[in-house]
């Protein structure tokens, strides 16, 4: 799927966020010289193709008191990752769960699951649940706590022309 020039203009207008006004799509349409219907039709089309996942808030978990943010990483056999990844991804406290390639010898882990909590003890308790679930399939693991947000802007298109 590719985006056309109108989509692009719309993405550029919205990548910083939606205006927080009663009729945000009409406001964006005004700014861009489009009609509200064109804006909402385009957004609906981009949702259906997956270009837009949802229109929502990006919460700052540090500011919300979720100061312990752990990226748990696991080494499990490639033959079992689909089954185990699905089970871990279904845990209610796991916010993101991915299979990613190992980078040997630096990095032996292929399953990544994000876990957040108010304290590291809380995160460690959740990590222990994942460890239990993996059982003998776990060949190794680690946890990387985030200590600082260095940047959080989301996607930015490069200016064209």
């Amino acid at each position: 799927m590719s985006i056309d020039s109108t989509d692009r203009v719309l993405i550029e207008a919205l990548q910083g966020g939606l205006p927080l006004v009663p009729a945000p799509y009409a406001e964006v349409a005004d700014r861009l010289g489009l009609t509200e219907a064109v804006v909402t039709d385009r957004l609906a089309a981009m949702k259906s193709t997956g270009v837009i996942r949802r229109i929502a808030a990006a919460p700052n978990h540090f500011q919300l008191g979720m100061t312990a943010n752990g990226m748990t990483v696991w080494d499990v056999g490639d033959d079992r990752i689909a089954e185990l990844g699905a089970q871990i991804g279904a845990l209610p406290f796991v916010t993101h769960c991915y299979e990613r390639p190992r980078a040997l010898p630096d990095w032996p882990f292929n399953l990544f699951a994000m876990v957040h909590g108010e304290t590291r003890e809380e995160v460690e308790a959740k990590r222990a649940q994942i460890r239990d679930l993996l059982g003998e399939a776990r060949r190794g693991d680690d946890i990387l706590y985030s200590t600082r947000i260095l940047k959080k802007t989301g996607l930015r298109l490069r200016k064209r022309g």
Partner: protein
Amino acid sequence: MIRPDKTDRALLNLLQEDLPLTHRPFAALAARLELTEPALLDRVTWLRDEGYITRFGPFFDAAAMGGAFCLCAMAVPAADFDAVLTKVNARPEVAHNYERAHRLNMWFVLATETPEGIAQTADAIERETGLKVLRFPKLQEFYIGFRVAA
């Protein structure tokens, strides 16, 4: 009154759902929280201005646009951290960047408009910093949807 209060927290949870594409989308949320539309918008603006939400708007998927995302990591010596950070963050392709307590202490996500953009950007960062950029593209996603129960 201590903010964010119970209403702010309920609002924050609602704001993590998909906002409808209607003429007055916030009015529906306001009704669910028994707030007026202006009161709700004031609260959303406050949550954003105070940094409880970093952004409110569409979440774009670079891969669905024909581009790509990739998680990357670097082991940055402490003495060089700020200088490397400035170089990495200066690139618009760097969508998020976190410091983590590990030998690999800088973890960032590249979002590019073309699949080749990932390697081009990561290679450019390697040349500019002299440090290896480990690349962890997602092979499979088991769950999507960041939700913080506030």
